[in-house]
C-alpha cells in the first residue's frame, strides 16, 4: 500500500467548503450506505490524506462495535469476528467524549491493544476516529486511516469532524430506512401466513367428513412456503399407532404411502406425538430420533422437516408434518406458524370425528327405530306368559335364575311352544332390559344374507350393498340378541358367531375395522344340536359355547293343565279385538280342547281359538270340535316327523326323485328347494331311492 498525500489546493478553506457541499449533495443522492461511502471516499481523497475509510456501528444490545463498511485498496487483516467489545474500541471513547479520537502513532497506542494489533497488521500508522451520533442516539464511528505516522493536522481533523456530522445524519436515515424495510418484510411475511391460516380455516370449517377435510388441508398447504411434503398422521387407539390419513407428496417415489400405519415407538411422528412438542429437524436430527424415518426420508431427498402435534384440550390427536428438500428450510417462526395451523386442524379433525360418530349413532338409531317399529307391528300380541302348570313354573324358575346373569342361554322346544316369549322374559328380567331386544330367525333369511344380517356390511362390500348396514349384533349392543333356529346357521358362518361369543368382536363385511359388541346371546332351536354335532352339521365348539344354560320349553301336551287358562286368555283377546261378547265355553268343548295333543302347540291353539271366535254368533264359544276329533284320530298313530317324512317321500315319488324345477318335489310341496333339501338331510331321505 502506498501512503496517500493530501492534494494541494490554491485555497484550502474554499476547497473544503466546496467538498462539504458535494458531500451534502452525495448524501442526498444516495440512499444506500455502501454507495454513499464509495462516493465519499472519492470526494474526500481530494482534501484529506487517507488510505482507508470505514464506518463502524454500535450494537447496544450485544455491547459490541461492528465494522459495517470499509473502503480501502487492500483487504483488511485480523478483523475480529462478531465485533469488538465496548471497552476495547476507540469508537466508544469518541462517542463518550463527543470528540474525535486521534491516534497519531499506532505503535504507541496502549489504551486499545486489540485495535492496535489489527491496525499494525494492516500497516496503518495513524488513525482518526470521528464519533457519529444524533440528538437521539449514538450510531458509531467514521474512521480515517493512513499508512504514514501523524498524517492528520488539526485542520484536517476539524474538517473530518464536519464531514462526520453530515455522515451521521445519513447513517441515521439509512438505519431507519433499513429497519423500516425489515419491518415491512416481516409484516408481509406475517400477512402471508395469516392469509394461509385463514385459507386453512375456511377450508376446514366447511368440511364435515374426514376425507373431504384431509383434501382441503392438503389444498391449503400445497404450493405454500416451498413445501415439498405435507402429511397428517392421526392416532388410532384401536391399534395404538398413528395412521397416515393425508399425504401430499407429488414428487415422492411411492415409498411413503397413504393409510400407512406408523408405530409410536419407532418413528419421528410418534416421538412428536408422545412428547407433544413441535420441533424442527435436520436430516441428522431425524436420524438421532428415528433411524426408520431417516431411512425413509433420506431416500426421498428430504433435508429438513417440521413436525407439530395436533393438540386439542391437552389431548394429542396426531401430528402435522411438513418437509422440504432444502436444508434448514424451516425456522422458529415457521414452527410457530405450523403450530397455529395444527391447532385449527385439530379442532376440525375433532369436529369431523365427532360428526362421523354422530352419523354412525344416527344410522344405528334409524336402524333400531325401523326394527322396533317392525317389532311393535308384529309381536305385540305376545305380552305375557300364560299358565300355571308345574312344568311351566319349573321353566319360569329357570328363567328367573339365569336372567340376571350374562350367560348365554339355549332354549330347546318344539315349534309354537313360546321359545321367543321365554327369550323376551330373560331379557326383561335382566339388567339389560333398557337395551334393545333384537331377534333374528336364522331359517327365514337366505343363507347368503345371514352374515350381513348378523354382522352388517360396508357400502360396496358386495354387489347390492348400496349403503352401509348395521348388523343385528351391533344393534343389540348392551341388549340381547335372540337367534331363533340357530341350528340353521351354515357351518361356514358358525366360526364367526363363535368369535363374537368368545371375543365379543367382529368386523362388518367389507371392513377391516373391528367392532366390539356387548350383546347377550339367547339362542333357540327345535333341532337336536348334539346330533347335529355328531353328523358334523354343527361345530362342536359353538355347541358347547351355546349350551351354557339349556332350557327346554315343554310342548303343550305336557302341560294340559294350562290349556283351559290359555283358551280363556285367547278367547278374551280375540273377542275384544273382534268386538264380540263371549261369556261361556261349553265344558264338552273345553274337555275336547284339553284332550287334543296340539302338535303345533300354543300357536296352533291360538289360531284354532281365533277361528272359533270368528265362527261364534252368540255369547257361547262355538268350537269346531269335529276338526279336533278328526285330527286327533290321525295324530294318535302318526307323529309330525313321520307325517313330514311321508309327505316328502310321496312328493319325491310323484316327481320321480326330482327335487327342484317346476315338476319337482319342492314345488309340489310348496317349499323352497333348499328348505326341502335341508329337511331331507335332517330326515335321512335320499333322492336316488326314487
Amino acid at each position: 500500500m502506498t501512503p496517500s498525500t493530501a492534494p494541494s489546493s490554491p485555497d484550502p478553506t474554499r476547497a473544503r467548503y466546496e467538498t462539504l457541499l458535494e458531500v451534502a449533495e452525495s448524501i442526498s443522492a444516495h440512499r444506500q450506505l455502501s454507495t454513499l461511502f464509495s462516493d465519499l471516499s472519492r470526494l474526500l481523497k481530494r482534501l484529506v490524506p487517507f488510505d482507508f475509510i470505514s464506518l463502524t456501528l454500535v450494537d447496544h444490545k450485544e455491547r459490541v462495535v461492528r465494522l459495517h463498511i470499509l473502503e480501502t485498496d487492500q483487504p483488511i487483516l485480523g478483523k475480529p469476528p462478531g465485533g469488538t467489545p465496548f471497552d476495547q474500541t476507540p469508537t466508544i471513547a469518541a462517542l463518550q467524549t463527543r470528540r474525535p479520537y486521534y491516534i497519531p502513532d499506532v505503535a504507541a497506542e496502549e489504551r486499545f491493544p486489540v485495535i492496535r494489533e489489527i491496525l499494525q497488521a494492516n500497516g496503518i500508522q495513524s488513525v482518526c476516529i470521528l464519533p457519529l451520533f444524533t440528538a437521539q442516539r449514538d450510531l458509531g464511528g467514521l474512521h480515517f486511516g493512513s499508512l504514514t505516522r501523524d498524517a492528520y493536522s488539526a485542520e484536517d481533523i476539524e474538517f473530518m469532524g464536519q464531514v462526520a456530522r453530515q455522515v451521521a445524519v445519513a447513517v441515521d436515515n439509512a438505519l431507519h430506512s433499513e429497519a423500516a424495510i425489515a419491518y415491512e418484510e416481516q409484516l408481509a411475511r406475517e400477512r402471508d401466513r395469516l392469509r394461509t391460516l385463514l385459507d386453512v380455516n375456511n377450508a376446514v370449517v366447511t368440511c364435515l367428513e374426514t376425507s373431504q377435510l384431509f383434501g382441503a388441508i392438503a389444498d391449503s398447504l400445497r404450493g405454500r412456503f416451498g413445501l415439498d411434503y405435507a402429511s397428517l398422521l392421526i392416532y388410532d387407539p384401536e391399534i395404538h399407532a398413528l395412521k397416515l390419513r393425508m399425504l401430499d407428496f407429488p414428487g415422492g417415489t411411492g415409498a411413503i404411502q397413504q393409510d400407512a400405519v406408523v408405530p409410536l415407538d419407532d418413528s419421528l411422528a410418534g416421538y412428536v406425538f408422545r412428547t407433544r412438542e413441535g420441533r424442527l429437524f435436520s436430516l441428522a436430527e431425524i436420524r438421532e430420533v428415528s433411524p426408520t424415518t431417516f431411512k425413509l426420508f433420506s431416500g426421498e431427498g428430504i433435508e429438513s422437516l417440521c413436525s407439530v402435534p395436533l393438540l386439542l384440550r391437552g389431548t394429542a390427536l396426531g401430528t402435522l408434518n411438513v418437509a422440504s428438500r432444502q436444508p434448514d428450510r424451516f425456522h422458529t417462526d415457521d414452527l410457530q406458524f405450523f403450530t397455529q395451523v395444527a391447532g385449527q386442524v385439530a379442532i376440525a379433525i375433532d369436529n369431523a370425528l365427532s360428526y362421523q360418530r354422530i352419523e354412525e349413532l344416527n344410522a344405528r338409531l334409524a336402524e333400531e327405530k325401523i326394527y322396533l317399529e317392525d317389532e311393535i307391528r308384529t309381536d305385540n300380541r305376545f305380552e305375557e306368559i300364560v299358565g300355571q302348570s308345574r312344568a311351566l313354573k319349573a321353566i319360569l324358575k329357570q328363567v328367573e335364575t339365569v336372567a340376571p346373569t350374562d350367560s348365554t342361554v339355549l332354549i330347546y322346544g318344539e315349534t309354537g311352544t313360546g321359545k321367543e316369549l321365554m327369550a323376551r322374559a330373560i331379557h326383561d328380567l335382566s339388567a339389560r332390559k333398557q337395551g334393545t331386544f333384537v331377534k333374528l330367525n336364522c331359517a327365514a333369511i337366505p343363507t347368503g344374507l345371514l352374515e350381513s344380517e348378523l354382522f352388517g356390511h360396508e357400502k360396496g362390500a358386495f354387489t347390492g350393498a348400496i349403503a352401509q348396514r348395521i348388523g343385528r349384533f351391533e344393534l343389540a349392543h348392551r341388549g340381547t340378541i335372540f337367534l331363533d333356529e340357530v341350528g340353521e346357521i351354515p357351518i361356514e358362518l358358525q366360526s364367526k358367531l363363535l368369535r363374537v361369543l368368545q371375543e365379543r368382536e367382529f368386523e362388518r363385511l367389507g371392513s377391516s375395522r373391528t367392532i366390539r359388541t356387548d350383546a347377550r346371546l339367547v339362542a333357540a332351536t327345535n333341532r337336536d344340536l348334539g346330533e347335529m354335532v355328531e353328523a358334523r352339521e354343527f361345530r362342536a365348539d359353538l355347541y358347547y359355547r351355546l349350551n351354557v344354560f339349556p332350557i327346554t320349553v315343554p310342548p303343550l301336551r305336557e302341560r294340559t293343565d294350562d290349556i283351559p287358562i290359555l283358551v280363556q286368555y285367547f278367547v278374551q283377546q280375540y273377542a275384544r279385538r273382534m268386538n264380540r261378547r263371549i261369556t261361556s265355553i261349553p265344558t264338552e268343548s273345553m274337555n275336547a280342547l284339553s284332550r287334543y295333543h296340539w302338535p303345533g302347540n300354543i300357536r296352533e291353539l291360538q289360531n284354532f281359538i281365533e277361528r272359533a271366535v270368528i265362527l261364534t254368533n252368540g255369547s257361547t264359544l262355538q268350537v269346531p270340535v269335529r276338526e279336533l276329533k278328526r285330527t286327533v284320530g290321525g295324530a294318535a298313530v302318526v307323529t309330525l316327523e313321520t307325517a313330514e317324512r311321508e309327505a316328502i317321500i310321496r312328493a319325491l315319488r310323484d316327481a320321480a326323485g326330482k327335487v327342484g324345477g317346476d315338476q319337482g318335489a319342492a314345488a309340489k310341496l310348496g317349499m323352497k328347494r333348499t328348505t326341502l333339501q335341508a329337511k331331507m338331510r335332517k330326515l335321512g331321505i335320499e333322492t336316488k331311492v326314487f
Partner: protein
Amino acid sequence: MLKITLHDSAGEFRLKLEGRLSGPWVRELEQCWTTAASTTSGRRTVVDLGEVDFIDPQGQLLLSNMFAHGVEMEAVTPLICSVLKEACQAPACGTVERKAGSTP
C-alpha cells in the same frame, strides 16, 4: 336388502339374487345387468331367483324387461313363480326361458 352374486362362466352369465328385489335394489340389479351385457354376447344370461323372498312392482317391471331381452329366469317358490308368471307371461315354475334373445 338384496345380494347379487355374479357367476361368470364360459357358457353362461348367472346373476344369483338373495333377499328382496325392491326399492333401490331394482336400479342396482339393472345397473349390474346393463354393465354385464357388454360382455355376455353369445352366452346365456340367467337370473337365479331361488333365494328371493319378495319382488316389488318395479322389480317385476325390470324382470319383464330383462326377459324381453332374452334373459332366462329361474325360480322355485310358488310366490316368486307366480310373480314371474305375471311379469313374463311364462310358465309358472322352474326355468323360464325365451328362445331368441338379445342383450340391451
